[in-house]
């Protein structure tokens, strides 16, 4: 499956970023890789979408950032889930559950 062709639903990117940060603090590339991993390679988030989203979410207060050393001794900016971020994740998860249930219902209807 060509991952690039799967466009993300509005708002879904936030959910995926928040979810991937539950596993621990990570930098932009890490988030991107983590999302690819947990979606089984369906979603590959490009830097052009990832960074604006990260910065927006930081401005919302859902995640916080700090500079730190990376695996290969490179300096990298690490993102961490904040308390409001966890609450937001819960909210988004519930919302997504409702949506996917509703879509499934709709598709099963004859």
């Amino acid at each position, binding site marked *: 499956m060509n991952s690039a062709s799967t466009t993300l639903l509005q708002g879904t990117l936030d959910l995926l970023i928040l979810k991937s940060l539950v596993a621990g603090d990570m*930098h*932009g*590339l890490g988030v991107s890789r983590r999302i690819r991993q947990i979606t089984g390679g369906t979603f590959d988030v*490009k*830097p*052009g979408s990832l*960074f*604006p*989203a990260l*910065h*927006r979410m*930081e*401005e*919302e*207060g859902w995640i916080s950032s700090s500079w730190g050393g*990376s695996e*290969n001794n*490179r*300096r*990298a*900016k690490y993102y961490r889930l904040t308390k*409001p971020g966890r609450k937001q994740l819960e909210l988004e998860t519930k919302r997504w559950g409702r949506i996917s249930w509703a879509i499934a219902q709709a598709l099963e209807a004859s």
Partner: protein
Amino acid sequence: MALFVKARTFLRNLFWTQSVETDLDQEVRSHLEMLTDEKIRAGMSPQEAQRTARIELGGIEQVKEQVREQRLGNYLHAVLSDCRYGLRQLRKNPAFTAVTILTLALGIGATTAIFSVVYGVLLRPLPYPKPNQIVRLWEVSSEGTRMSFADPNFGDVRSQARSLQGLAEYGAWLQSVSGGSGPTRTMTGTVSRDFFSVMGVQPLLGRGFTGEDQRFGAAPTALVSYGYWRQYLGAAEELSAAHLKIDNKSFSVIGVLPPGFRFPDGADVWIPRELLPILPSRTAHNWDVVGRLRDGFTVGTSRAELSAIATQLQHQYGADIQLATVAVEPMREAMTGSVRPALVLLLIASGFLLLIACANVVNLMLAQAATREREVAIRAALGAEPGRLVRQFLTEALILALSGCALGVLTAAWGVDALLRIGSTMLPRLEGVAINFIVLSFSLGITLILAAGLGVFNALRASWNARNALHAASQKQTGSLRGHRLGQLLVLGQLATTLALLAGAGLLGRSLLRVLSVDPGFRTERVITMDLALPAAFDGPDKGPRVQFLSELMTRLRRIPGVEEVGGSSAMPLSTGVTSDGSYAVMNPRQISPRVRDLIRRSAEGSLDSDPALLKDMGAFFNEIFRNPANTGEADYAVVSEGYFRTLRIPLLRGRLFDDRDSFDAPHVALISSSLAKERWPNGDPLGRSLEFGNIDGDLRLLTVVGVVGDVREKSVEAPPRPTIYVNYRQRPQATRHFTVVLQTGADIRSVTLGARETLRELDASVPPHFSTLPQIFSAALETRRFSLILVGIFAGTALLLATAGIYGVTAYSVACRTREFGIRMALGATANEVLLLVLGVGALTTMVGVAIGIAGSFALTRTMQSLLFDVSPGDPITLVCVAVLLAGVSLMACWIPARRATLVDPMIALRYE
């Protein structure tokens, strides 16, 4: 909490831009490095890893820009940086910036100044409650002439009109009023019952008129203006002691009206109209009328209702009534109708000037475009979105336009002062003319429209040209050739508009010259006028003293050193005061019945105020004699002394002037103007004929024509002379409430004026005089004309200057662009003259087409001027030819200078150019 975080972020984004930017840059770079590391680990060579990583990232700057757009407060940030960038651009080209701002300031300033006058005078609502309900009414004759109302007609309209909630008669005259301090010439309004409720005004202090005050024979009461109360009554809260002496009667001041209320005609004192008798005649047009529409009625519906009433009245009274229909007009329009054409013309003219200024600005921007094209192309290549570029150009245009607007409004503030100074006596409602909120909104509005237009135009043109701008530097020339063609088109428009303005100014100028060459029928040189507002002298016992007073005054004035001639008239030419005109009848003295002879005798001795029966019989008599149109006519009525004709050099054509023979009890005599003689007795001899013109002063004694004098243009210099009947002040002193003494002198005007003032004070200290000179009055009569000529002239001159600069600029720019081409041409053997003609040819073509379009277009402007022209048609060929030649000449001169420069091109230098 979240809000706090947001606010902090917002401020950080806005002000700690540097650290935010570094942070972002480092983050994206580290991302790229890690990406590269990842690729290398996966087995790629370092170069290939770097390349793949870059492709995956999609451009560092682009990613950064995407993050920036996402940021809080990004919009504001972008605007600020646009402004910074725009300012830097403008600073880089100080000459361009200064010329652009000045040009815009000129256009916006002129438009703002004129709009502030147009708004203050024409558009501003009247300062009364529900001002749109207030209307003015006139009787209209079957010929369509507007006339004041006669009492019985007013009464009928008032009682029958359902569309009006109130209707009032009013008049205003200058009176000599003695109050707390010395006597002053005060505008006194005489107003009927509903006047103040129609205007929606209540006294600030004291009380208004009540039914008790508003009846014939009531104790005289008066209201005063706020200003009069402060100045002459000491602003006393207690009014019971305040009395005014008007017309030898004492009026108790019962109330003070709120500040600013001065209607009608800047009145300071108001008295009840009911103190004066109601005249039974349906053709005695004595009163102005104002009304207030009832809710739910419009001017249109009211007009329909009132004309139906008028038709019915006409049916009922036939020949005894001149009323054919009723004119209804909103009060505001009625007050300003006379100056509307001039102001509308000026607004159009200033708009034209603004357009011409804008064309110049666009041309300047076009010339600048070449340098901007590369910059725009580079920015576009670096990831700037088209919207962002448009915004950049809009910001720059906005900076320019707003600076122009600010400077323009400052200029306008100064200009409005100057306007008010030259238009002070001509414009009504001047007190409200100022640069106020509405005017500012107006100029800001046009500024924003201009900025949007200029910005979008620039952005479109730049992004259009930017596509090929990066390809090669030599593109510059073809790219700007399109701009050049557009510039040429703009110049065309400028020339056409300028021609229209020049034609307008030319026509106004020619009209003024024509008016000045009109012979008014009298000479103005060295004549001093002295206006007097005297008490009424209609009653029998008052007549003798009035004659004595006037005779004594003129005799004593004659004795002042330097005074050569003295005369007087109740109806000075060109004065804005009261004019009296009415119907006269030619009578045969031998056919007068004894009943009429008895009536004439009663009228000579009696008093209209105290004898209602006389008033009634008189009305019946006039109805009878005016019924035969063959013997009646309309004429102006003037009470004069014989010195009046000598002072103003009005020639005696036949017969004699008045003299001492014509005493009070001698047969009454009259002089008639030459136009009246021609109209009434085209072939016969007017001398010795008898006229009845007693409806002006209530004295029915017949007037015998003893002389014919030259025609005088009384109402205005422009209007043809009106038939006039002059009576002798010794015999008919009644209608001399307004009397103007004229003094001819070769001596110093100031000293004669002082002497005259002193002479009058010795004789009667209660009459304050007003001095002027006939040349001043004559010049004031031409003020509207001069006002519009000066302004349209200034606009046309400025337009000419701007258009010249425009065509010069475009030609110079094209010469600069084609330097190389000219070099090649000359290297190939073209002579200097051929090159000169090449450049001049384009300029001449543009000029000719522009002038041709301008001539066609000027009709649009000049047709709106019809009412301002005198003896010149809007399409006057001489004016059009003159301005066309002027414009073409100036324009060709402007082309010639750069064309000449083109011939001086050294082929060698030109070929190495660029």
